[in-house]
């Protein structure tokens, strides 16, 4: 569905993406994860055909998304900055979408509007942030586009609505499989929904793997400082911390399955996908604690 080779997007003042490579399969739910400013939104807008690439190859549905009518008709981009005409109320907006998108499911749209208590005659400008996000989410579901892209769709939603959103996303995906890209700052909330994660870091595709592979690639090790250090040096050490004197905890990236029985003096524990992501992408040694240590030294 989506193929990128050495994709780059450079602006006059800075570069947003450079040499990004990835392939996204049809009919999967992929989480696009990255730190603030990593390039997630740029990546998704390039795929949606809003932005033009600077160099490299980008094919969506085997065409150039910037110029392809097929890509525009078969994809939809949902974010909280969606530009919608202010002269139409919610019902009229839904009708507009219905006319453009052949897969539009009208009963679903109406049911969701009722469920989330969105008044059909209201105008976007008069809705709260959360209601606006909910409305935009409804558009994403009802349109049933083969490629549906959500850029932080849950901003402004309270926890209960978020939960409903995830459940609705899954249910509609089961009923009508499609390719979904979902970016969110709440990885811990969505990790069960995702099949794969694409981590964008340093303007590149840092990692692209299944959620379970991500979790299995990182492990936390606790024990005596010496033993922990020895273990950490055998693998890619991501962070190390002296908790009690003589004891240490380290987070380590491992390449293959660790036989924990071989290390009786160490305690292993798994991390959530979100924690794994944070440790893998944090280049600052010692974390935020270091800032306070350094400032205390003065």
């Amino acid at each position: 569905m989506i193929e990128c080779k050495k994709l780059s997007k450079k602006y006059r003042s800075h570069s947003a993406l450079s040499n990004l490579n990835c392939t996204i399969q049809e009919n999967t739910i992929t989480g696009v994860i990255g730190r603030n400013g990593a390039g997630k939104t740029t990546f998704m807008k390039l795929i949606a055909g809003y932005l033009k690439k600077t160099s490299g190859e980008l094919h969506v549905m085997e065409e150039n998304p910037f110029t392809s009518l097929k890509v525009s008709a078969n994809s939809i981009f949902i974010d909280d900055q969606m530009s919608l005409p202010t002269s139409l109320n919610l019902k009229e907006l839904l009708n507009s979408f219905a006319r453009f998108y052949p897969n539009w499911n009208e009963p679903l749209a109406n049911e969701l509007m009722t469920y989330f208590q969105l008044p059909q005659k209201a105008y976007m400008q008069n809705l709260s942030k959360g209601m606006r996000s909910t409305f935009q989410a409804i558009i994403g579901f009802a349109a049933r586009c083969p490629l549906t892209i959500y850029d932080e769709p849950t901003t402004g939603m309270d926890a209960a609505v978020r939960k409903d959103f995830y459940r609705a996303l899954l249910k509609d995906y089961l009923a009508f499989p499609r390719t979904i890209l979902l970016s969110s700052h709440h990885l811990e909330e969505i990790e069960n929904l995702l099949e794969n994660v694409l981590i964008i870091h340093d303007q590149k595709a840092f990692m692209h793997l299944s959620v379970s592979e991500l979790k299995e690639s990182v492990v936390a090790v606790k024990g005596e400082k010496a033993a922990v250090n020895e273990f950490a040096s055998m693998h890619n050490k991501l962070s190390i911390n002296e908790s009690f004197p003589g004891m240490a905890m380290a987070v380590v990236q491992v390449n293959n399955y660790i036989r924990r029985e071989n290390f009786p003096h160490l305690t292993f524990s798994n991390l959530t996908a979100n924690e794994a992501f944070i440790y893998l992408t944090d280049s600052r040694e010692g974390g935020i604690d270091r800032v306070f240590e350094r400032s205390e030294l003065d």
Partner: protein
Amino acid sequence: MKFYEESDLPIYIQVAEWLENEILRGQFEPDDKIYSQYQLADLFTINPATAGKGLTILFDHDILYKKRGLGMFVTPHARSVILSKRKNEKLTLLVNGIVDEAERLEVPFDELIDMLKSAKMKTQGRDKND
């Protein structure tokens, strides 16, 4: 249906274990059709591919078999496979634990074997008296 989110295990393994429990409980008889990955996804609010991974594990262990186009079904010997697998895992863990503990307490291996023998005799005695 909720998962124990505190659990350390990957979701697909939790799914596999839940299915094993269902089979042991008798919810599924041999040659019954097991839940599809979509049904599992709906049940647990997880991605169907992840649910599929759990099913694949059971397939690899010969607990389920595939019928082309129809789905996955419980093998006739599924129950016994599950029981022996669990037995082996649990028992192995316990045995390793005993050996480690004995080492830590500096108990010589022969004394350990004696302890095992007397434990065995105790249970045998219990059985005899029943």
